């Protein structure tokens, strides 16, 4: 499957799991999307570790250091799986996977070339020496424990937005 097809399939399946699904190309596009998705002034946790996170961070005047105090987490994730519309969050490199768990709103950025076609593809990569935590995230948190009626937003995020960033464009750091 081609890159654009993988991205399209991933976004389609993510949307089917009640995630907001967005596709952007370039920093400007990404920042514009974030401006639409993240309410102005919300306390945001953005790790600022990757190029894309560094580009996004200045958008948020109200950044918090502890994700437990945030209403929104904006972060780049390890990858995604097209087959199931799933994000892959890993603890490697000192990443706090719970950043995508505690706040009510999780905004996950993933590069198109980090989208695996299938579960097999992803597991082949992490199976040998898995990091402490690998979490596959498909949609916001949910339950059907009461009368099998779906309720979105239980202990994890109530809202999940995924943003696929198309390659081929450089991402200079935003001005500090």
């Amino acid at each position, binding site marked *: 499957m081609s890159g654009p097809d993988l991205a399209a399939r991933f976004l389609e399946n993510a949307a089917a799991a009640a995630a907001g699904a967005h596709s952007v190309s370039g920093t400007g596009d990404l920042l514009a999307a974030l401006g639409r998705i993240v309410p102005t002034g919300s306390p945001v946790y953005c790790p600022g570790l990757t190029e894309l996170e560094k580009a996004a961070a200045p958008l948020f005047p109200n950044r918090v250091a502890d994700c437990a105090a945030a209403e929104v987490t904006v972060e780049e994730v390890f990858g995604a799986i097209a087959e199931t519309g799933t994000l892959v969050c890993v603890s490697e490199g000192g990443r706090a996977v719970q950043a995508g768990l505690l706040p009510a709103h999780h905004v996950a950025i993933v590069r198109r070339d980090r989208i695996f076609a299938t579960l097999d593809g992803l597991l082949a990569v992490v199976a040998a020496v*898995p990091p*402490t*935590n690998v*979490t596959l995230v*498909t949609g*916001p948190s949910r339950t059907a424990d*009461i009368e*099998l009626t779906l309720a979105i937003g239980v202990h994890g995020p109530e809202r999940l937005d995924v943003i696929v960033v198309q390659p081929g464009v450089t991402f200079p750091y935003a001005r500090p």
Partner: protein
Amino acid sequence: MSDAQTSLSFRSNAVQAIGNAQLRAAMRHATDTFGAKRADAFAPVADVEAMRDRASAIREEVLNNLPRYVDQFVASATRAGATVHRAKDAAVAREIIRKLLADRGARRIVKGKSMVSEEVDLNAHLEASGMEVVETDLGEYIIQLERETPSHIIVPAIHKNRQQVGKLFSERLGVPYSDDPQVLTRIARQVLREKFLSADAGISGANFAAADTGSLVLFTNEGNGRMVTTVPPLHVAILSIEKMIPSLADFPDFIRLLPRSATGQTMTSYVSVITGPRKPGDATGAKELHIVLLDNGRTEILGGESRDILKCIRCGACMNVCPVYRTVGGHAYGWTYPGPMGLILTTLLTGMAKSHPVVDASTLCGACVDVCPVRVPLVDIILQLRHRKVREGFSDPKEKAGMALFGKAAASPALFALGQRLAGWFWPVVRVLGGKDVAGRMPAPAKTPFHRKAP
């Protein structure tokens, strides 16, 4: 909270359940919904049968070499920094966990859903030593507040309707009454968030364990499983030994089969792969990870004729299609596990003497066999258990005598014909003896049996 096992009164439990209109309605709704959702989820999947065959083969491979996979898991989990404990039985498991919590001064424990922890009656043991144990899965939280036991292995509060939950929350939590599931869920989120963040320890189960890497794999939807396993400084996981899968690379088929079989979802919201506690450089993970591997009779089952029940991956699909479960709900079975897989495990784990009536809780219709993702031969195993029930002397004496007579009559045409004649002549008496429940539901025998009119 766990009550004593009531499997011996299965029939009267069932009668009570049948008379409970709200329970009947809840069970019909639940089983109809699950049945349809599962079918819809599998419909677009191209090679379901091949997938089931592969998953079944992997589970068989594990059972054929279980001690080796368990040893491998212990070694690799230990290498990853976890402390692994082997618990021979329920009492040992409870005490291992209580002690390691008490030694660290843990008072508030948050808990993810774990059927095995119900099996060993863990909560009561911890609470008896003064610890606060808070169930965080919404369904488990509901039944904990209600002081009940789960009635389904995936959806523990399936027997409750929204009004009952609304009333429960308003009475026990002091919130204004609402029966809107979204509102009730939000209340639970608020109440439990505070518990997660202040807990000394988290206890979870695990859906599977990968033997080669020592990883625990959890399938959850609410996020409480993720909280419980990463937020408190101490994570204790309890799982039974047959949950092993050889390698993480074997998981795709199970990831495709389990959510669809259980809830009709393509994926659960979260699949967590946890390998050891937090390591230097990590910002995620409990500081300490203790893994308790429970035997509690499984090694013995493994050596017996019904060992294939250990292939079960706890999806709940079998109970969702079972006509008996649908009619009587989960509590009637009297122990932790209900429905087809439940009556088998109950009998094998708690013994025939305490369980034998549930062995009859099946019409042998085979609906369960149709849906089991790993092809556990459920009907065959139930037949084995019934044969054991007879051999071990737990049959009803009248039934035993009747069957002995049947055996003779079936092999003797003269005796068979005599029986037919007597039944025909004394049908009103047979009806009285056989009760309106049985003979009363049958027509009177024909005046002339077919064999006298046949060619």
